[in-house]
């Protein structure tokens, strides 16, 4: 047992009774409170904390609040589903006042000892929050901030946070991690009580109004939804939604989203993360990368510069090739242009050749015919002579001789036809051949005369 302290003297001049030992008084207080009427209360649960032996929460409404506790065994016996009892839940509790007197080594605690509990429905605050969220969403106020471009490398960052809060250090740590050391503008504001929302709204507005700030971080350390309720303020959320500067919210609540999380350009879980998001670029790394890019550009540039004389030479070579190609083409064209003439000449030569061959063939045939006729004439002459001999014997031979004479070319000439021959004594059978021959011989029935072909006129 702890040793009792000896009773000291009282305060000079005081008329109050005592002094009494505090433990004794606390025990009396506990007994007194326990004698109060046991009642049922209703309100909203906030700051719910579950420990090994007890569950603690505050029961709140618009007029006031009361700390409550319930034995863990009683709480578990309620068999409430997961998440059925959370911050904002409306409940009815039954029980009475109690006081834990504490000791030299443990703190005293006043609470309403809950013996029975019934979840009555979603809390007013949460219902109100839900209505506001839906209204802002319906007005499209979650979108404008999302459309703003978060600069990758802001020069000036504005931060709205509590002056003495841990969030301030976290923001600095995040910026340090990015290697960012630009201009940081602090706008301190209360971040918890009922004055918070208007002050935060003003801070955000003022930061944007300077026109110097590229991005604004609104940061607060963790807390219950009740503590963070100022970040669900309608005026604050509307202001941020329509702000021209992107806002990164970090109000540090894991389970519930405040409305500022919905309207902001970006919502982060911690102030450190928010600061890192405000500077997307890792500055030292970026400097290194830039150096590499500069080097690569240099390599490409040098390569191109080296390539330039080679290209000039290539261009020159191309010029030579071009001229050569042009010459070749001109030659081809000239050849092609000459082609029709050459073709005609070739055709002419071929025709001449044909003509000569035809003439030769004609001569050969004529000579053959002549020889054949001569032979036949000889044969016939002999026959004629023998026939004449015979004629005397038989008059039929005369008729045969006359028929034979009719085949003699000489006979044709005798009838007035003329045989035209050239100098080679070849028969000339066409006007063209006559013109070509120039000088010809005209063989009449009686004799031959030389003649010259003059004029190109054709007569039909």
């Amino acid at each position, binding site marked *: 047992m702890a040793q009792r302290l000896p009773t000291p003297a009282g305060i000079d001049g005081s008329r109050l009774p005592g002094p009494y030992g505090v433990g004794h008084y606390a025990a009396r207080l506990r007994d007194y409170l326990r004698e109060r009427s046991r009642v049922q209360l209703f309100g909203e649960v906030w700051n719910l904390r579950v420990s090994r032996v007890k569950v603690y929460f505050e029961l709140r409404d618009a007029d006031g609040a009361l700390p409550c506790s319930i034995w863990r065994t009683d709480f578990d016996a309620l068999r409430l589903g997961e998440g059925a009892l959370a911050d904002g839940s409306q409940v009815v509790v039954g029980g009475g006042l109690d006081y834990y007197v504490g000791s030299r080594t443990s703190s005293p605690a006043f609470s309403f000892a809950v013996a029975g509990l019934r979840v009555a429905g979603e809390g007013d605050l949460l219902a109100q929050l839900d209505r506001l969220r839906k209204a802002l969403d319906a007005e499209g106020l979650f979108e404008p901030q999302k459309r703003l*471009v978060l*600069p*990758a*490398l*802001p*020069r000036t960052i*504005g931060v709205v946070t509590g002056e003495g809060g841990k969030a301030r250090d976290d923001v600095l740590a995040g*910026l340090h991690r990015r*290697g*960012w*050391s*630009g*201009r*940081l*503008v*602090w*706008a*301190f504001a209360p971040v918890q009580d009922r004055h918070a929302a208007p002050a935060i709204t003003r*801070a955000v507005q*003022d*930061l944007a109004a*300077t026109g*110097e700030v590229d991005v604004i971080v609104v940061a607060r350390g963790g807390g219950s939804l009740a503590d963070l309720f100022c970040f669900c303020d309608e005026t604050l959320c509307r202001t941020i939604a329509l702000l021209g500067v992107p806002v990164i919210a970090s109000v540090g609540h894991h389970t519930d989203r405040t409305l500022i999380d919905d309207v902001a350009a970006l919502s982060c879980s911690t102030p450190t993360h928010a600061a890192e998001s405000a*500077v*997307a*670029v890792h*500055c030292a790394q*970026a*400097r290194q990368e*830039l150096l590499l*890019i*500069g080097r*690569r*550009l240099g390599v*490409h*540039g040098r*390569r*191109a*510069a080296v*390539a*330039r004389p080679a*290209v000039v030479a290539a261009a020159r070579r191309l010029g030579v090739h071009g001229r050569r190609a042009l010459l070749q083409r001109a030659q081809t064209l000239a050849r092609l242009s000459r082609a029709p003439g050459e073709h005609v000449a070739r055709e002419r030569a071929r025709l001449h050749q044909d003509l000569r061959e035809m003439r030769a063939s004609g001569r050969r045939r004529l000579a053959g015919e002549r020889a054949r006729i001569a032979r036949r004439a000889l044969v016939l002459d002999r026959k004629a002579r023998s026939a004449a001999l015979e004629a005397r014997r038989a008059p039929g031979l005369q008729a045969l001789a006359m028929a034979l004479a009719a085949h003699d070319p000489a006979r044709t000439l005798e009838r007035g036809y003329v045989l035209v021959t050239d100098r080679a004594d070849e028969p000339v059978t066409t006007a063209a051949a006559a013109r070509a021959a120039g000088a010809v011989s005209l063989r009449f029935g009686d004799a031959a005369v030389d003649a010259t072909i003059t004029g190109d006129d054709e007569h039909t």
Partner: protein
Amino acid sequence: MSTPDEPLSYEAATARLEAIIKRLDSGEAGLRETLELCKEGRTLVELCAAELEAVGQGLEELHLDELVARLEAGAGQS
């Protein structure tokens, strides 16, 4: 596209730089294009370096009221 009134942002400049490097590495750019890309790239590298330089001079912390006072003083001078 940016205009002279609206300077290129750091992210736009780096994005363009990436595109330039990609084009140059592809080997498809002709000589004239390569020289032009290198020239543009060097300008962008300088721009990015200047931006990084601006946020690498040491953290300057000031209160909103100080900034406002400074701006007002600046406005009064001009």
